[in-house]
């Protein structure tokens, strides 16, 4: 490929250093212009948008996935909060129910006891009344017996029946 124009052996005359050979500059610039324009147009019009599209698509996908993940996490957190609230509600309700039933039971027991006590008191009172009545009846019988007995004793001793009113008076003073 060594042609006459460019090599150093041309007639023993030393050719200039290749990068400074003026006659090659036009060709270099010509091809450089064509190549660089083709490269620039190919990249900017077609390939770089394609490449950036792929990258953007991936970034969107990752972003979307992260968003979905964070939404799911928020949802699960909300569910947990709801669950805990439900649990607390149920517990409070159970406690309230327990307290209520306890109070009811206590009230019922109280009422029953009171009723029982009232019954007993009534019975006691009735019994006391009866005792008192019996006692009164018995005491009035004692008076009659004492009057009779006193009248008979006086009659036996004096041979003469005393006046009934006097005996009664005497017995009454003795009894009281």
């Amino acid at each position, binding site marked *: *490929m*060594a*042609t006459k*124009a*460019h*090599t*150093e052996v041309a007639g023993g005359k030393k050719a200039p*250093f*290749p*990068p*400074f*050979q003026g*006659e*090659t*500059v*036009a*060709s*270099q*610039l*010509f*091809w*450089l*212009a064509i*190549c*660089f324009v*083709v*490269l*620039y147009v*190919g*990249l*900017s019009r077609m*390939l*770089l948008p*394609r*490449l*950036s*599209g*792929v*990258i953007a*698509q*991936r970034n969107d*996908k990752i972003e979307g996935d992260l968003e979905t993940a964070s939404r799911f996490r928020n949802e699960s957190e909300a569910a947990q909060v709801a669950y805990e609230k439900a649990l607390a509600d149920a517990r409070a309700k159970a406690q309230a129910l327990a307290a209520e039933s306890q109070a009811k039971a206590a009230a019922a027991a109280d009422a029953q006891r009171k009723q029982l006590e009232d019954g007993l008191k009534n019975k006691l009172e009735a019994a006391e009344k009866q005792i008192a009545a019996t006692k009164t009846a018995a005491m009035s019988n004692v008076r009659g017996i004492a009057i009779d007995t006193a009248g008979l004793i006086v009659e036996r001793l004096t041979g003469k029946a005393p006046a009934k009113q006097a005996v009664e008076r005497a017995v009454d003073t003795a009894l009281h």
Partner: protein
Amino acid sequence: MAADPIAQFQIKKIVTLGHIGGHEIALTNSAVFMIAAVSLILGLIYLATTSRRLVPGRLQSVAELTYEFVANTVRSTAGTDGMRFFPLVFSLFTFVLVLNLLGMIPGFFTVTSHIAVTAALAVLVILVVIIYGIYKNGLKFFKLFWPSGVPLFIMPLITLIEVLSFLSRPLSLSVRLFANMLAGHITLKVFASFIGLLATSLGVAGWLIGILPFGMLIALTALEFLVAFLQAYVFTILTCLYLNDAIHPGH
């Protein structure tokens, strides 16, 4: 044994296509490698984006990593506004990187070792900076050379320095890339030639001593791969910095 370390930079004509304004336009080895680089970049990214998988394969991963790498570079140096130049910066980065890396294959031509190419790219960048800077900011673009908060009596000096530094940008941008590629490839060639030289002149002993430059050659090759990437990156990040000046003039 081609011992001449300069021969690898020779531009060889394949077919003459015609003349434009007295200049010969030819299909050269340089042109073939430029076409190859562009085809490689477009083809690989095309293949990488055919399946458009959510979980990327290898090729798609590489394409996406490159995309993110360049995008982050643009964003961190030129801000979000700089993303309008993303296709340009991406084109520059991949073009220079692939040309540098193709040049690392033995026997292949390194397009970026020619100042005409690197200078053209640098001029493209500076033209974009100037045209966009004036289009976007009008005369405010020239505040670039008129930093605020500087005492008036040293302003001429500062302005002179700013103008000089601005003018030196395309120069440094192009020379840095070109010189790195050139020097690296010459060094590789020189060390490789040593091995052949030792072997032909000293025989078996030469082969044994040749292990030394061979080890050096391996280390240098690794270094040159790093340089190939690094220079592409430096070109890119400087482009972003200059574009940042066009977008946000006034320090």
